[in-house]
Each structure stands twice: as C-alpha cells, then as structure tokens.
C-alpha cells in the first residue's frame, strides 16, 4: 500500500480509530492490532511475501530467546551467524542472485568460456533490505547483551513489521523501538497534531516536489543521448530533488504516522543539502542506514582508530557496502566508491567532524564562506547522483561526457518547458521553506506555530491544494526497490 494512495487514506483513519477507541485500554490488543494492520498493509502489495516476514520474525525471535539462555560462546556465535545467514541469505537471493549470475557469466565469457545460464525470474519483495537490517540489529544487540530479548512474540512481530516504517524505513534499532511496544500508550493531542503536520509535509515533498521532478528527470535520463549539456545538468538537478523529496518525504510520513499511534521513530534526514562537507552530508542523509553501517560494520572493523591503511580500508568497505545495499548494479557500487573518495580526505586530515552544528544557526542568511561550502558539497552530491540514477556505467559515463561538452552553454531543450518552469519554481519555494525550518526536526515543525490559527490553516490549505494541483504522475517511491 502506498502512502500517497486513496487506499492508505482509508486504511490509516480506520486503523487509527480502532487503535484508540477499541484497543485503547489493552496494550496487547493494541500491539496485536498493529501486527494485523501491518500484515494487511504489506499484503496489499503481495500477500505471498508475508510468509517471508513471518519466517524472518520466527527465526530471529527464536534465536533471540536461545541467546538469552545460552552461555557457551561458540554456540552463541553459531546462533548469531544462523540469523545473519538466514536474513542475508534471503536478501542475497531475492536481491542479488541475478547480479552475481550475470557477472559470473560475463567474467567467464571474458576468459573465453561461455556458460549457459538464464537470469532467474525473481520478484524483489518490497522493503526486504529495510526489515532485514532491522531484525539483524535486534539479534546483534541481543548477542552483544546490549538488549534483553523479548518474550512476547506479538511485540516482536510488531517491531519487525511496524507498518509506517516497514517498507522504506527509518531502519529502527531494537533498543529504540522495541521498548516502546511495552509501554502503555495514551493518546497525546499535541503529538498527534504534530504527526499530522509531518505527514502533510512528507506528502508535499513526495507528491509535489519528487513526483514533479521525476517526470522531468526520467525524460532527460531516458533520452540523454539526444540532450544538450545544459539539459543534462537540469536532469541531474531534478533527480537530486526527486530522490530527496521521495525518500525524506516517505520518512516524514512514516514518522508522522507513528506519532499518531504514540511512537517516536528516529530522524532520518536533517536537511542534507545544507551540508558544508561530505561528512556532514552523511550525518544528515538516510541517518538510520548510515548509523547502522557505522555501528555494525565500521566500528567492528576498527573504525577510524587504526592507521591510515585501516582508515582507508574501512571507509571504502562501508561506502561500497552502502552502495551495494541500494541495489544489484555497478552504478550503486561506483556511487559508493565516489563518496568514499569524497569522504576520505576529510577523515585523513581529521576534518570529518568539523561541521557538526546547523549551518548559520540563529541567522537568516549564511556567510559567503558557508554558502560556498554548501554549494561545493551540493555539486559533489549532484555529480554522484548521476551515477546512481544511470541505467549502467556506460550510460553514466556518456551522461557525464554530455555535460562537459560545448552544448553546456546552449539553452536547455525540454519537452515541457512550462512544466519545467513550474517545477523549478516549486523547488525554489521548497528550498526556502526547508532553509527556514532547518533548525527543526522537519521544515514545517515550528513554521507558523506563532501565527494566528486562520493564517496557519491557510498555509496548510495551500499545501493541500498544491498536493492536488501540482502532483506529478510518478507514484511509486524510489526506495521501495532497495
């Protein structure tokens, strides 16, 4: 079920009313309702894959229980690796089987021997990368004795399948989300109102910004061979805002929806395009994934404490794995490598923690230096997104070559110039609002809160009208495929 669909517009209030009116006095009933609602939510897409979630839930619940009673170190390790292999095994099969098969085939044919294999017809279960990482974090934390394993299967099922963040995150840590299922949840008016506001802003980001940019970006990327340099630059910029609006919009809706049910999810985006260096960008972009890799991969590998070689190795490892997590394509791996190259000089010169605070905090405008730093970081990011969005490496190479040609100074050739102008205007308004709200959890959190109610409501209505009037055709969320 998509957040931006009529189905969800009916589903959410129905579950909400059942949750607070019928199940209000019984915590177990509330949790059971969350599990039921989550399974309906996921099964709406394809009910067959519910068995996969159920199986994954059963495996990690059982292993968690066994880890509690097991003191033998070897046996504990075996249990941990069973969980890792089962979870990554599913992920590997559904997501990466064809990638490895095709690459083996290419490698063999490179050395002169042809092997006859056909690509497997595999449907990628939506959100598999997200819930796999979430359950893995539970088992690893239980193994490391950072977390008490749960005895309650319903609670654990709710944690794995919690519908607001099931298919595209934020990837929650068991240490944050699991305890919330044990606490009695009472309705909090201000939290619910704030949740609604965040949902509204998330929908704006997705339906107005991302979907409008998607139409233009898709057209330019799909016809890049016929485009001049300036059009290709515009295509890259449109994709930059598409992916941000799409993914951070999803996170906002997920967090806002969770707040309606009394839950607090972690912040997943902190205005990443206002970062002053790449290290800051990675502290602000898809935070739940980057911190996951930091805690479960980078630090166990030795982090940045070792010598130069270790720093280089670990940095490349985390960025390559992060790229590969996005999908079975070399473009994602190269995108990861490129970010590692961006990040490494900062790490080696100990400047990776230089820009921790919010840019121009307390001021309306940034300094010239801050502005140039943001512009430089943004340019690096846009460049990397070209590789991320391209069909394959050749496409990315041709796209970038097309930009650095004489046609860069020509007037952009767009199929729908009026649509492009409107989208650009909307993106400017969006950047302005995001800039104003950059000190909050999300741009709209405090915006206009001191205004009188009619004025504030007029602002919300303007956003609602924009949702209907400027929404693009693209409906699916990019991160569903990851």
């Amino acid at each position, binding site marked *: 079920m998509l957040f931006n*669909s*009529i189905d969800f517009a009916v589903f959410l209030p129905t579950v909400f009313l059942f949750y*607070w*009116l019928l199940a*209000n006095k019984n915590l177990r009933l509330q949790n059971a309702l969350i599990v039921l609602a989550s399974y309906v939510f996921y099964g709406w897409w394809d009910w067959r894959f519910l068995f996969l979630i159920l199986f994954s839930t059963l495996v990690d619940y059982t292993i968690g229980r066994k880890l509690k009673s097991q003191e033998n170190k070897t046996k504990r390790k075996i249990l941990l690796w069973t969980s890792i292999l089962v979870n990554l095994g599913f992920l590997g099969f559904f997501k990466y089987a064809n990638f490895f098969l095709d690459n083996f085939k290419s490698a063999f044919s490179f050395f002169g021997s042809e092997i006859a294999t056909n690509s497997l017809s595999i449907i990628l279960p939506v959100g598999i990368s997200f819930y796999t990482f979430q359950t893995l974090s539970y088992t690893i934390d239980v193994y490391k004795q950072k977390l008490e394993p749960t005895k309650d299967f319903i609670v654990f099922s709710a944690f794995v399948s919690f519908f607001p963040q099931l298919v595209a995150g934020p990837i929650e840590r068991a240490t944050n989300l699991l305890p919330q299922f044990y606490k009695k949840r009472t*309705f909090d*008016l201000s939290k*619910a*109102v704030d949740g*609604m506001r965040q949902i509204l802003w998330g929908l704006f980001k997705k339906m107005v910004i991302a979907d409008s940019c998607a139409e233009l970006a898709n057209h330019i990327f799909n016809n890049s061979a016929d485009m001049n340099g300036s059009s290709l630059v515009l295509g890259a910029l449109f994709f930059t805002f598409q992916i941000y609006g799409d993914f951070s919009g999803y996170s906002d809706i997920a967090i806002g929806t969770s707040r309606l049910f009394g839950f607090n999810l972690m912040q997943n985006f902190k205005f990443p395009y206002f970062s002053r260096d790449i290290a800051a960008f990675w502290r602000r972009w898809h935070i739940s994934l980057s911190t996951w890799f930091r805690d479960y991969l980078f630090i166990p590998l030795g982090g940045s404490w070792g010598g130069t070689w270790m720093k280089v190795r670990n940095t490349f490892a985390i960025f390559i794995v992060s790229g590969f997590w996005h999908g079975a394509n070399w473009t994602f791996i190269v995108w990861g490598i490129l970010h590692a190259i961006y990040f490494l000089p900062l790490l080696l010169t100990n400047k990776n923690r230089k820009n921790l605070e919010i840019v121009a905090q307390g001021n309306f405008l940034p300094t010239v230096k801050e502005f140039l730093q943001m512009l430089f970081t943004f340019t690096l990011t846009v460049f990397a997104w070209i590789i991320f969005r391209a069909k394959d490496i050749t496409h990315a190479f041709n796209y970038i070559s097309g930009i650095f040609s004489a046609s860069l100074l020509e007037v952009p050739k767009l199929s729908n110039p009026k649509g492009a102008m409107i989208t650009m205007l909307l993106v400017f308004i969006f950047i302005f609002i995001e800039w104003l709200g950059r000190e909050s959890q999300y741009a709209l959190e405090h915006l206009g809160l001191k205004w009188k109610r009619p004025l504030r*409501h007029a602002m*919300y*209505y303007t956003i*609602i009208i924009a949702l*209907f*009037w400027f*929404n693009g*055709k693209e409906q699916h969320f990019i991160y569903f495929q990851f």
Partner: protein
Amino acid sequence: MKKFVLRILKFSIPALLFLLITFTYYRHSKTKVESKLTAFSEHPVLLMGDSQIQRLHGDSISQGAKNLASSGEHYYFTYQKLHTLTQNKNHRIDTLILGVSIHNFAPVYNRLFSLDFPEGEKSLKKYLYFIRMFDDSGFITTFDKVLKPAISGIYTAPDFGGFYESTNSNPNEEIINKAFNMHFSIKQEEAKFSHSQRDYLYKIDRLCTENNIDLILVSTPYHFDYKEKIDRKYFDFFLESLKKLKHRRHLNFIEEDIADRFMSDANHLNKLGAKKYSGIIGKKLKAEKRDVLQQ
C-alpha cells in the same frame, strides 16, 4: 482523542464546504448541459467526430444540420454525447454524419483516452459533463487520477463542439510533420493502434441502429504529404475496422488528390476546402434522397 477528531473536523470544514459547493455547481451545470443537448436532439441531422468534421458546414450539407464535432474527441465522448441526445424520447435525429479517418486509430487516441497522459486529463476536463463517472468504459478507473481534472472540468465550460473555420492554406512541411508526429508518434508505451476507438465506433453504430438513426461515415481528404507518411498498417486497420460495422455507408475522400490551397494543414480542410466538400457531401446525400428536411 475526541478533541483531536473535533479539530480535524473543524479543519475540514472549508474543504467540505468547497466540495459541497462544487457538487451543487456540478449538478446545476449538468442539468443545463442535458437540457442543451436535448435541444440539439431536435435537429434531424448531426455532424459528430473530431476536428476534421468540425470544418464542415452543416447547412451546406443539409438545412438545419447541427455540427457537434470537437477537436480531439475520442469516440467514447461522441458515444456519451449521442447517448444523452437519444435519451430524449422525442428526439428528431434521423441522420448522423460521423467523421472517421485513419488518424482516428493512431496512438494519440490512446493518450486522449487515458488519464495517465495530459491529453486524457484534457479530455476529462472538456467532456466531464457528457460522461457518467466510473462507468465500465475503462476511462476513469481510479479516484486519485480523477480529482484534479474533474474539479477543473466542473468549473470549465463543457465543449459541445461546433463548426470551426480555418483560414490557413498551402501548409508547409513543418506543419505536416508536426501533425504527423502528434498523431502517430508513440510517446511512452501506448499501443500502436487505438482499439478503444474501434470499440466505441461499434458502440455508436449499435446505438444508431437501436434508435433508427442513419449513420453515414465521412472521411475528408488528407494532404498528400501527410498521407504518404502514414504506415500502410494504419490504412489496413482502418479499413478492417469499418468492415465490421452494420452501417457501411462511407463517403471516403482520403484517396482523392486535393490541391494544397484547400487544406489548412495536414488533415484539416480550410475555408475553401470546407465549402467545396460540404457541398459535395450535401449533393451526394441529396442524390440519395437522404436530406431529412426534404422528405
């Protein structure tokens, strides 16, 4: 919780009011549209179809004939208009002159009949008052794609169609290419032929039979260069489609070699061409003693 629900309801009041006003306005306008169509059903001869037929003089064909053709009109909307017209039990429609041509089965008509395309949204906006929402046509299938063009359509004057005169003549290559690309290029993944056009052409055929309306198909001329560009498969599809009609009376001028001075662009007659061919069609009908008013 109660307070929250009340707040949501209070916040929704302006939206609900807007919807109520919109719905009332829609009902009011729909009644007006239906009564106007009822008045059109008093005409014994109607000209319907897309912009090609829009260029013909009704009066030159038959006295009192009414031209209801409109630019880019998919047969689905023609069918819906005709359906409303024939709902009037006292209608006097005796003859329907329907434009039918090769480009009517081109990919552009798939776009005009799908809300996935801006062309389809435009269709909904133009013809909203003539259709029944959520019928089994396959045009409106989901609520989410409908809202914007539908609200916009409610507050837009419906397109009843009517005679349109073109003053341009001797079209150049650029104009012809533009029309050809608009009609025959496949923009996304739409099908090569418009099967929905064929389906609704047959429905119009059946509706005419049920209501004792004489259906005469008219294909006005094409510019030679435009005709040359069209894939033969479209000619075959066009002729094949017409074979299955019950009413086979077809005045076909497509194969005629026409001087450029009669054409406004690739597929439309100009003022001069309209005068010439309206006269020819009128004479042919009179010769066959089909002029209703003379009977």
